[in-house]
C-alpha cells in the first residue's frame, strides 16, 4: 500500500486524498452510472427500485446524522419531515403544475421551514424533552395527514405525477434512478463539506458542551435551528424521491416505525460520520429486502443491533472499519 507523506495541514484537510482516492471516487461514480444497464443483464432489474429507495434513505440518514450525530439533538420524528417533503412535492406538481425540480426545491424549502419551527423549542428543550417533542411532531404530522383529507386525499391516497428528464430510451424508473442517485451523491458531498467546515465544528461543539460552545462564541440559536432546518431539508428531498417511487402517497408510509428505522440507520452506521450514515442507510435498505421472509423479526434485529452497537462499538460499523484500517496502516506497530 502506498503511503503519502502529508506535509501541510491543508493537505490533510482534503476530502479525497491522492490519486488512489480520486480513482476510487471515479470508479464508484462510474459503477453507479452503469448500474441500471448492468442489472437487466444479470436479471435483477427489480433492484433498481430498491436502489431508488436506498438513495432516499441515504439522503435522510445523512441529514439526520448532521442533527443527531453532529449536533447531539435527537429527532425521533424524521418520518414527519419526509412526509411533509413527499406531500409538498406531490401537491406542488399536481395543484400548481410546477416542474419536478421546482417542486423538489419547494418541498425541501417547506420541510426546512418546518424543521426551523421544530428547532425553535430545541433552544429551550434539551435531552429527553426534545426527543419527546420530535416524537410528538412525527405523530402529529401523521395524524394531520390522516384527518385533513382535502390536503392528503386521506386514506384514499394522493396520486403523484411522474417526473421526466425527456431522455428517450430510458424507462421512467431509470430516469428516477439517475435523479435520485444524483441527488444522494450531491447531498452526501454537501454533507461531507458541511461537517468539516466551520458549521460542522460549531455543531460538534454544541454536542460536546453547549455552554462551553456558547462561551467560545458559537451562536446557539442560529446553529441549533440551522441544524434542524438542514436536516429537514434533506428529509424533504428524500420525501420527494419517495413520492416519485411510490407514485401514490398514503400516510401509512410515514409512521413512527419509519422514524425509528432512520434512527437505527445512523446508529448502526456510526453516529457523527457521513460515511457511517451512508453505510447504515444502504445496510438497512438491503437487509429488509433479503430478510423479507422474516419481516416480523425486523424490529428485534434492529433493536438488538442498536443495543449491541451502543454497548460494544458506539461509533458504529464505520467506526469499527476506521479502527481496522488504522491497525493495518500502522502494522506492525
Amino acid at each position, binding site marked *: 500500500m502506498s503511503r503519502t507523506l502529508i506535509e501541510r495541514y491543508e493537505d490533510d484537510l482534503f476530502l479525497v486524498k491522492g490519486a488512489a482516492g480520486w480513482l476510487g471516487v471515479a470508479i464508484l461514480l462510474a459503477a453507479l452510472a452503469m448500474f441500471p444497464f448492468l442489472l437487466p443483464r444479470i436479471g435483477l432489474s427489480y433492484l433498481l427500485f430498491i436502489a431508488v429507495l436506498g438513495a432516499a434513505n441515504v439522503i435522510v440518514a445523512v441529514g439526520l446524522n448532521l442533527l443527531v450525530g453532529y449536533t*447531539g439533538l*435527537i429527532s*425521533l420524528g424524521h418520518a414527519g419531515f419526509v412526509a411533509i417533503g413527499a406531500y409538498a412535492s406531490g401537491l406542488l406538481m399536481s395543484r400548481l403544475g410546477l416542474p419536478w425540480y421546482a417542486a423538489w426545491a419547494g418541498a425541501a424549502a417547506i420541510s426546512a421551514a418546518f424543521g426551523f419551527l421544530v428547532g425553535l*423549542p430545541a433552544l*429551550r*428543550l434539551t*435531552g*429527553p*424533552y426534545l*426527543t*419527546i*417533542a420530535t*416524537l*410528538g*411532531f412525527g*405523530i*402529529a404530522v401523521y*395524524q394531520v395527514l390522516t*384527518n385533513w383529507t382535502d390536503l392528503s386525499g386521506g386514506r384514499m391516497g394522493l396520486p403523484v405525477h411522474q417526473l421526466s428528464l425527456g431522455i428517450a430510451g430510458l424507462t421512467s424508473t431509470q430516469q428516477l434512478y439517475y435523479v435520485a442517485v444524483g441527488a444522494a451523491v450531491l447531498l452526501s458531498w454537501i454533507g461531507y463539506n458541511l461537517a468539516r467546515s466551520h458549521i460542522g465544528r460549531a455543531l460538534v461543539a454544541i454536542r460536546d*458542551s453547549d*455552554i*462551553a460552545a456558547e462561551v467560545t462564541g458559537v451562536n446557539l440559536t442560529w446553529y441549533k435551528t440551522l441544524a434542524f432546518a438542514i436536516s429537514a431539508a434533506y428529509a424533504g428531498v428524500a420525501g420527494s424521491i419517495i413520492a416519485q417511487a411510490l407514485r401514490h402517497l398514503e400516510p401509512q408510509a410515514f409512521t*413512527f416505525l419509519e422514524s*425509528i428505522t432512520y*434512527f*437505527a440507520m445512523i*446508529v448502526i452506521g456510526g453516529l457523527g460520520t457521513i460515511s457511517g450514515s451512508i453505510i447504515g442507510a444502504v445496510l438497512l435498505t438491503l437487509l429488509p429486502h433479503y430478510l423479507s421472509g422474516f419481516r*416480523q*423479526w*425486523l*424490529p*428485534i*434485529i*434492529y*433493536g*438488538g*443491533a*442498536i*443495543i449491541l452497537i*451502543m*454497548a*460494544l*462499538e*458506539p461509533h458504529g460499523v464505520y467506526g469499527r472499519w476506521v479502527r481496522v484500517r488504522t491497525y493495518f496502516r500502522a502494522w506492525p506497530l
Partner: protein
Amino acid sequence: MTQLGQYLVGGLATGSLYALVALGIVLLYRSSRVLNFAHGDVATLATFVAFTLLGRAVPFSIAVTASLAAAAVLGAAFFFLILRPAKEATLLGKIVMTLGLALVLSGVMQLVWGADEHVFPSPLSDTRVYKLGQVVVSQMSLGTIVSGLVLMGILYVLIQRTKVGLAMRAVAQNTVAAQALGIPARRIYALTWGLASALGGAAGVLLAPVVYLDPFMMLDPFLKGFAAAVLGGIDSLPGAVLGGFLLGVAESVFAGYVSFKFKTTLAFGIIILVLMIRPEGVLGREYHRRV
C-alpha cells in the same frame, strides 16, 4: 354542570393511569437522568404476561402480581445486564439503548402474541355503575382511580418512610456521596429500574380492560405520562401525580367541549407551554445547569 362532573370523573380515571406512568418515568429520570423509552413496552409486556396467565385460568390477583414481578425483573435485568456494563456509555448512548430495548420488546410481543387486539378480562365491570348525585361512575373507573391511589400511597411510604427509600433518595441526590457512605448504589439503581417498570406494568393492567390489548397499547399513555411528568416537574414525584391528574382532567374536558380528534395534540401543546412559562414544572425545583 353534570356534564362537567362526568368529564372530571373520566379525567381522574385516565389521570391516575398517566400519574402511574409518570411516576415510573420520574423515578428513573431523578436517579440517573435517563429517559426510558422502553417504559411503555415493558408495561405492555407485563400486561401480556397477565393476559396469558389469565387465559390459563390463574386467579386474577396472582396473575397481576406475577406480571408486575416480571416487569420488575425485566427492568432490573436491563440495567444490570446491558446498561451498566456498556462501554463508554454517554447519556445519549443510554437513551438510545432504551430505544433499542423498546424495539426488541415490541418485536417480541408481535411475534409471540401477534399484532391483533385482545380483550383483557377484568373482575371489574364497565357496565355496573354507581351514582354520585347526577354523575355516573362505572365500577371500572372507580377501581382504576382507587388502585392508582393505593399504589401511589405504597410508593410514598416506601420512599419517604423506609430505609430503602432513604437510600434511593440519597443515590438520586448524589451517587458518589451515597456510595462513599456505604450505600450499594448499583443495587439501588437496579431496584429503581424494577420499581419503575412495575409501576408501568400496573398502569398497563389497569388500562388494558378499557382499551384493547395490543403490542402498541402503551405508546400513547407513555407519551402522555411524559407530558404529565414535564407538567408536574420532571424531578418531583408529587409533581408526577399532580401532573398526571391535571393532564387527565384537562384532556377529558378538552375532548368534551372542544375537539375529540385533537385531544392527543393537547398533551404536546401543554409540554411546550410549560417549558416556555415554567421549565421546571409546577412542583419541580428551580432548574440550574452546570457545565
